[in-house]
């Protein structure tokens, strides 16, 4: 009698284990450490929502060949220690195959362990050059062009559109004294030389600087055709543009991804018209883009009170698209969806048409897309000023 009970218990245990295993095999786990609170929350909560919605949308469309995606996230408060802790926790508990990190810092801190022991695909909010270096970090990718590539795209645009025909265009770089600000500058200098654009000034400030009069005076002295901001989200951009206008400068001001928000245009007010910049994703109001249409419809269905989604949301959404794409490629090739297999798919993404949402995506020489579009502000909204500009 006792042995019968023991047998049935063992059988029951085995059955539960098998059921658990097959259930675990059904979902593709994607984790994220998101700065939902803290000083990066203004973007973090949208990136989180974008990624969550993108994966839920993919599930509605049938998942990865019938396999559902599970999204697991943690809040980090934009604190490196908490982000690393959250990553280790989720790896121990859920062992996801893809992960989305909160910052350049987290990516750098985890890079050795991801390459050597965890071996999972890693995307992040960062557009840093270092994380897109395939030879060093084959598991990491950047969901768009790196900051350097964004500068490359803007400089290409500038070279093609000089203010006075037949004369070299001149440009100034205006950046903050942080990793975020300095990251693309060496590459930008080189690129400008190659394209025949003259860099006439470089202004460096502290992040969120208040007194920028000496920098504006310097800009006045050099009077560049274009001035590109890097490393700021809002301040001191409005003050610089206002100051330049007060001095009668005709300079066109430009920004990269984080300085291409409606929030900034709101702060700029009437000075905003003519402000330009590069961004890798289409804007919410471009409803002629099929993916934007899908996002709006998804929003209507699940978040009926939402009337606008910023670019950080699009970044999350696009990262979700990349995750799903990689998993689908694995599935099509008949490979199991594991970190190393997913990593091998990254260089194989070639001319992937995102339906005008982010251009045609290829991860060619580096794990960054190298494509973006230049937009110009008109009446409080951004409208396209160029077609997709490809760097490679």
């Amino acid at each position, binding site marked *: 009698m006792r042995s019968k009970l023991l047998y049935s218990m063992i059988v029951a245990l085995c059955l539960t284990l098998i059921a658990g295993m097959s259930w675990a095999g059904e979902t593709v786990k994607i984790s994220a450490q998101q700065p939902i*609170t803290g000083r990066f929350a203004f973007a973090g909560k949208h990136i989180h929502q974008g990624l969550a919605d993108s994966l839920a949308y993919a599930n509605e469309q049938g998942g990865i060949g019938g396999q559902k995606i599970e999204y697991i996230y943690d809040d980090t408060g934009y604190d490196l220690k908490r982000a690393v802790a959250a990553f280790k926790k989720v790896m121990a508990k859920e062992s996801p195959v893809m992960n989305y990190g909160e910052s350049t810092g987290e990516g750098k801190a985890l890079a050795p*362990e991801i390459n050597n022991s965890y071996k999972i695909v890693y995307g992040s909010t960062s557009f840093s050059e270092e994380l897109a270096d395939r030879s060093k970090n084959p598991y990491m990718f950047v969901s768009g062009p790196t900051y350097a590539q964004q500068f490359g795209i803007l400089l290409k645009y500038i070279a093609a559109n000089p203010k006075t025909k037949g004369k070299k265009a001149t440009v100034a770089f205006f950046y903050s004294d942080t990793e975020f600000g300095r990251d693309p500058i060496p590459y930008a200098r080189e690129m400008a030389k190659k394209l025949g654009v003259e860099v006439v000034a470089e202004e460096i400030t502290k992040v969120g600087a208040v007194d920028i009069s000496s920098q504006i005076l310097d800009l006045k002295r050099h009077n560049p055709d274009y001035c590109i901001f890097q490393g700021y989200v809002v301040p001191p951009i409005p003050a610089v543009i206002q100051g330049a206008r007060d001095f009668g400068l005709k300079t066109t001001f430009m920004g990269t991804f984080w300085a291409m928000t409606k929030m900034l245009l709101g702060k700029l007010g009437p000075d905003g018209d003519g402000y330009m910049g590069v961004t890798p994703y289409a804007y919410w109001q471009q409803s002629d883009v099929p993916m934007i249409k899908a996002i709006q419809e998804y929003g209507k269905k699940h978040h009926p009170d939402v009337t606008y989604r910023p670019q950080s949301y699009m970044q999350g959404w696009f990262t979700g698209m990349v995750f799903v794409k990689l998993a689908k490629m694995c599935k099509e090739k008949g490979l199991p969806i594991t970190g190393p297999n997913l990593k091998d798919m990254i260089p194989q993404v070639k001319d992937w048409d995102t339906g005008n949402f982010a251009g045609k995506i290829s991860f060619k020489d580096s794990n960054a897309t190298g494509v973006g579009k230049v937009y110009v502000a008109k009446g409080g909204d951004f409208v396209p000023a160029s077609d997709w500009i490809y760097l490679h």
Partner: protein
Amino acid sequence: MRIGDFKESYATDEAVFTTSTSRFWLGVLFLILALFPFMVGDYLLYMANITGIAIVAALGLNILTGAAGQISLGHAAFVGIGAYTSAILSNRFGMPFLICLPLAGLASAFFGVLVGAPSMRMKGLYLCITTLAAQVIFEFFFVHWESLTGGIRGLNIAPAKIFGLNIGTEFGFYWVTLTVVIIAATVSRNIFRTRVGRAFIAIRDRDISAELMGINLFRYKLYAFAVSSFLAGIAGCLWVNHLKSITPEHFPLHESIRFLAMIIVGGLGNILGAIYGAIFMTLIPEILQAILKFFEEIFPQAMSFLFPLQTVVFGFLIVVFLVFEPHGLAEMWVRVKSYFRLWPFKH
């Protein structure tokens, strides 16, 4: 119940742990600490490691601020100096971890003495501002001395080894952290029993009367700076070998303030206080997060309001502790212990 505490010899008089009960519980603690890594996963080991590193740094600041009464707002910069020294020594000269560790401490101690030098003429808020200046200046060097520090991108280092054993994993590193914490706590505890430690306390309590007693204020203040930054440097070396990368953004001013908060919440001038404070400040955000995650399953919609509340709750907890127990967590522990000493007899 504790009885038989007669102190019949000099040895028993000088002992730190005077009764067999406390020695027994200390043994239990060590046993748990030794078994801990075999029972838990990478996540808890990671938490243990960063807590350990925070403890070493907090013990350092506790000597300077808690014992000698010199407020420092530059402690994170000294941790940074240790971290950079260790990274540079191991990257450029291939020095092993065990040599980097004391050298990182010494480098930090050297700069600590330099920063402490103005304490000859200044005290209180003025000295506080000097250390703030040190924080800003060292941060500036971390960012701009690119050939040495790797600038804003920082440095990456290879996983460390001790006698060929890899300590690059959380498990391996746990033993290093644990050993260093035990040594640091023992050294700190014993410093307070020496002439130097008593001089620190005399300076803190009333510097003029300390000087009248024949204590050379300047020399002892410099000692305090040196010992404190030595421990900070050790913590920095652990930090960089644990994370395997550093950037200047790892050592901002608010990190210095966090160290101050640790020793204040734990109990100023108290070894156990520094330890409790470091544990509290490192673990509470994680615990709050776990509680919120639990509630998320019940109220998924409320999360957008609850997440930002974490910071508020954290701040509120600190205020509550300070109002109801200004002597910190260490004092609360003493009260709990003394309640149970006679338990279940009330008097």
